[in-house]
């Protein structure tokens, strides 16, 4: 999309009318929560998902407290089952996925040079569906919280076995959240397709926006399947349905397939935003472009495809013809290619760089380190015979948790630290960031290495107690201590974000010397994001702009500060 005369990337080609300064007539909080601005929606999603992360951690620590010693009676069995069901649902459906979507909602339009999303009201609707989902789940503590685990598998979730409203609460909550996130994925998909700045070809997309595109396609694929499964389950429960009733010609395994496709998608959604964010942060703080961008972007497409096709690796113990299982194993093992290539290219980006260890970079490095352990653990589990040993022991929980912490938590926090100055105009406190990262890294190993070892000894997953004399006592005690360290570490970052929003060090629009378009906008950006939308001529549009400024002004001052130029 280069224009013939090529004088500058800065001159506005399209006259745009922008009015921004209309004073609001309603209170601030109403303006914020009803806003059509993707930045308000994104910030609310991020804030809410971090709040749910804290709730999920509280539930996790309570469960670990019950499992600190054998045959503990600290927490009632039914309460444990409820904490288990609500806690895991919270961490996956109310934290990991919305945190990813919230970050994409905020960052993607800025990165692609758009003035908003394609369907601003749909974004608002999605936000409210998500908040309602969280409310539905937590209000149920006042009457009947769910108790059928995070996936509510039938027949257990059929009224014959759990007749109370807990399962219905779970169906409602997960349904609302999935619907909201899927609609927002649709919004982002259309935004990415139709509203990119001139010259912003797919191959020039910033890695995080590319991850946003792939994540949205993924949610559009797996979200409706989960909604279908939930609907069928509800029909089974209340309208004499027989979809999953083995006695009436249905089969519970259909639900297993549908829900595992969805939850495998969620698992990939723990990875993709982290991969996208790391692929921007590592280059920025190494002072080098991403090594082999094309390979990383291609990997981001391959990961959800292979990952979701491997959903049956969660069902290796089921009565499924072995050929299907081999197929799932092959897909899961082939993930080694895109994931390994991505890691290799991150490392190659570091090589020869001038690495600045600022907070976002530290979190990105912590995420890479933790993901290496988690994904290696997944590789072990991908092999059918080894899976027969480890599946459904606490070792499997430990491996998934490594990916949740490495991807959603550390990768997500890296993204938050990186774009926080864009959202607020202020930096997050660096010393609190360092403390948080240290505690998280110590906590994750302290919690999940002992849990892996306990799983090898055969400790079953999801049980409210374990028994003495099986060599599990020490492992569980250490894991409980670790879970406290881990949770405090995460909490420090959440507090840091809340504090820094008003008290952080003020910075300009481009504190990290980034190469992508969002740093071209002021911090925080105005409602319309950009006064002038520049033409994009490479994958590093801001570098082009700096060069243009340099050529025009003959001075590096302004480029150094990264001030918006127009």
């Amino acid at each position: 999309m280069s224009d013939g005369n090529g004088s500058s990337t800065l001159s506005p080609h399209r006259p745009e009318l922008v009015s921004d300064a209309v004073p609001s007539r309603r209170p601030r909080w109403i303006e914020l929560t009803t806003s059509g601005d993707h930045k308000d929606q994104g910030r609310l999603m991020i804030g809410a998902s971090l709040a749910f992360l804290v709730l999920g951690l509280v539930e996790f620590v309570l469960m670990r407290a019950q499992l600190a010693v054998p045959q503990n009676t600290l927490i009632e069995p039914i309460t444990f089952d409820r904490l288990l069901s609500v806690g895991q649902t919270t961490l996956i459906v109310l934290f990991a996925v919305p945190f990813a979507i919230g970050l994409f909602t905020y960052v993607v339009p800025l990165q692609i040079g758009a003035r908003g999303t394609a369907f601003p009201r749909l974004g608002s609707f999605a936000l409210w569906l998500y908040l309602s989902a969280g409310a539905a789940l937590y209000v149920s503590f006042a009457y009947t919280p769910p108790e059928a685990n995070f996936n509510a598998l039938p027949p257990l979730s059929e009224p014959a076995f759990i007749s109370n409203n807990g399962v219905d609460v779970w169906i409602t909550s997960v349904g609302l959240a999935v619907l909201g996130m899927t609609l927002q994925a649709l919004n982002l998909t259309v935004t990415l397709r139709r509203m990119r700045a001139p010259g912003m070809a797919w191959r020039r997309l910033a890695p995080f926006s590319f991850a946003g595109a792939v994540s949205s396609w993924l949610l559009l694929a797996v979200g409706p399947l989960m909604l279908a499964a939930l609907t069928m389950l509800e029909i089974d429960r209340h309208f004499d349905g027989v979809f999953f009733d083995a006695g009436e010609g249905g089969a519970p395994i259909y639900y297993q397939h549908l829900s595992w496709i969805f939850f495998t998608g969620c698992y990939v959604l723990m990875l993709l935003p982290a991969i996208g964010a790391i692929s921007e942060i590592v280059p920025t703080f190494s002072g080098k472009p991403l090594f082999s961008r094309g390979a990383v972007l291609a990997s981001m497409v391959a990961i959800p495809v292979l990952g979701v096709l491997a959903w049956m690796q969660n069902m290796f113990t089921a009565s499924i013809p072995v050929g299907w299982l081999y197929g799932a194993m092959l897909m899961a093992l082939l993930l080694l290619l895109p994931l390994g290539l991505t890691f290799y290219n991150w490392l190659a980006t570091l090589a020869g760089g001038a690495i600045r260890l600022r907070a976002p970079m530290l979190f990105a490095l912590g995420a890479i380190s933790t993901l290496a352990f988690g994904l290696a653990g997944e590789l072990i589990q991908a092999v059918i015979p080894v899976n027969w040993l480890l599946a459904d022991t606490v070792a499997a929980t430990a491996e998934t948790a490594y990916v949740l912490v490495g991807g959603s938590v550390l990768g997500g926090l890296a993204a938050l630290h990186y774009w926080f100055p864009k959202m607020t105009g202020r930096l997050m406190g660096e010393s609190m960031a360092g403390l948080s990262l240290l505690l998280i890294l110590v906590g994750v190993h302290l919690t999940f290495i002992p849990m892996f070892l306990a799983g090898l000894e055969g400790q079953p997953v999801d049980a409210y107690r374990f028994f003495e004399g099986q060599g599990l006592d020490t492992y569980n005690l250490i894991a409980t201590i670790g879970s406290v360290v881990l949770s405090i570490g995460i909490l420090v970052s959440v507090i840091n974000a809340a504090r820094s929003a008003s008290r952080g060090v003020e910075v300009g629009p481009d504190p990290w010397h980034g190469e992508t378009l969002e740093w071209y906008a002021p911090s925080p950006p105005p409602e319309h994001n950009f006064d002038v939308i520049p033409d994009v001529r490479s994958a590093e549009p801001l570098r082009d702009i700096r060069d243009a400024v340099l050529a025009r002004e003959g001075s590096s001052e302004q480029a150094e500060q990264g001030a918006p130029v127009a």
Partner: protein
Amino acid sequence: MLGPESAHSPNAEDLNALYWVMLAIAAVLALAANAALVALVVRHRAVRGRSARRVRSRGRAQFIVAGGLTAIAIVIFAAGVIVTHSASKLDSAGADGLQASRPLTAQRTLDVPSGDPQPLKITAVGQQWIWRYEYPAPAADQSSSPNPSAPAGTGASASFPQTFSYYELVVPVDTTVLLTLDSTDVLHRWWVPGLGAKADAIPGTLNQTWFRADEEGVYDGASYAFSGAGYPAMRTRVRVVDVPQYQQWLAEQAQGIQKGQAFVQAQLAEGGALVDNSEGDEAPGGSE
């Protein structure tokens, strides 16, 4: 400590062997990535007067890495298929075992051919929250040489009561046991560490696993699928004994069950109170 429970069945040996290989591969990959990460960050910290080298990627390095990773994945896949196959194949019973069963190629749902040497077929039924084991009647050739403790008056095998036990599965040593899994209510998952693979028990579909315990003793296991409030209590035990002990136990168990049934029958015959509800509307007032 880093490994699974020691194997006491041929298929468990397969599983454990592949576990160690995979653990080694995973550990090398994870530790190599972390070591490289630390080394690169230490080496390339920004210092004054040195700027980053803008190296463009070379295609060749990508292809070498990609090829290497794909090769690893394919080799692991091949090993996974081979070990899955071998762990699913029922070995024949050992020298001290109950019956010499011929090797069978097994899928997860085995279709065991009829014919001479058969494995010992036991059904494990999961129910909230206990395992029930159903044993076969002694084979015809064994009943021809009557066990001294066999219940007197056992007529045709049809009248031989189904022998069952709860919680504890008793099996003869060195004998191939084919375990068919079923459930009467929700999803359960059977596994005894050291004795092979986990397998689901779900209503409506039969599933199978097998083991051949190499040593007499007691092996503890559990249910590995969340099945509601009593799930952690759903444990199980496999007691491995020698063949005569097994046959004696089976006969005693059968005798005990028969005694119990006879007792119930007598009670039913005496007092009519227990009889009438067995037919007709057993749930008065309830809708169908």
